């Protein structure tokens, strides 16, 4: 149990997908103007990443590996991810038109969110079981959502600040997220392996 928790923490914080691995920066910069939108995006991405992690494990272990089709990995993963994203988009459009509007182009772009494919591929490299794969995906997605939310909170505050014209908008967002990444370096080397067997 403790080990699983540590796996979750390690994927969410220590090896944060956004700030340490620099994956999925596009939606982080794009959908972090308000915390509500960020939460929606975070949830959608969490759904997609977790599902994609599970699906990719199934594909890898039941289809690609037995048939020796490792070279088709990226292709099949993208296929699955695109389908999951398409489904998510339909679902959000139906259930929450406002969120659909505010996520805009970034919703279909989850497909090309490198965090999704990245996590799926990294996951396969870890040679986990199905449950841990799901957990790895979920933890990474949690880290993504956490950073997205925190960053959105910071941007909401910065939006109210008297930022000089030269830095207003995207520049100050980059400065902010770089400082956030600096803060996350505090987690680097966090020795979770020592406790886990």
């Amino acid at each position, binding site marked *: 149990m403790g080990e699983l928790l540590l796996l979750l923490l390690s994927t969410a914080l220590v090896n944060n997908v956004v700030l340490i691995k620099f994956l999925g920066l596009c939606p982080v910069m794009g959908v972090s103007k308000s915390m509500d939108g960020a939460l929606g995006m975070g949830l959608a991405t969490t759904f997609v990443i977790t599902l994609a992690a599970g699906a990719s494990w199934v594909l890898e272990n039941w*289809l690609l590996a037995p048939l020796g089709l490792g070279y088709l990995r990226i292709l099949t993963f993208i296929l699955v991810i695109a389908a999951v994203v398409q489904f998510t988009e339909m679902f959000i459009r139906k259930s929450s038109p406002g969120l659909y509007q*505010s996520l805009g182009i970034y919703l279909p772009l989850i497909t090309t969110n490198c965090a999704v494919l990245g996590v799926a591929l990294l996951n396969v490299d870890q040679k986990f079981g199905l449950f841990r794969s799901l957990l790895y995906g979920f933890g990474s997605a949690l880290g993504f959502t956490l950073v997205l939310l925190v960053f959105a909170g910071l941007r909401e505050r910065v939006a109210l600040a008297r930022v000089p014209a030269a830095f207003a908008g995207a520049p100050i967002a980059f400065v902010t997220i770089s400082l956030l990444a600096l803060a996350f370096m505090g987690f680097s080397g966090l020795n979770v392996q020592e406790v886990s067997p």
Partner: protein
Amino acid sequence: MIAAVLSLTLLGALLGVVLGCADRFLRVEGNPLVDEIGALMPGSNCGQCGFPGCAGAAAAIVAGSAAPTCCPPGGKALAAAVAGRLGLAVDLSALADDGPQIAGVAEELCIGCCRCSKVCPTDAIVGAAKQIHNVLREACTGCANCVDLCPTEALLLQPVPPTLPHWVMPKPLGA
């Protein structure tokens, strides 16, 4: 090779079926947002926004080709409501802050030609032929349709004078 082709085909077909089913069950008819935004608009179809009527403006705003501030009669109130609904950031200061305006008739110039009352989208101008016309303050939206038509330039837009109960404390300067 055959395994690869088969597995990809199978996978594609499977996902296609799933998405097809989802499309049936999660279908959204039309764009509910356009109707919602349209319900917020004044509905007088005055045309100041440059779109054919309020429904056209609503569609344009939702599509992003028009700013939420495009409706002068709706003013800041409408812009804020629309922007809030769409989750857009909108610069309300872009709206000229000279306050609402309404049309007024210069009585010494009016010849009672009735051209103005025909185009008023809210029937705010009253007056019979060859009689001096008058503008109902409560009904006028300040759309200026009548101003251009008046042959004697008797119609002018005037700012609504401030009154004690409607006075608004100005925003602090600087700071």
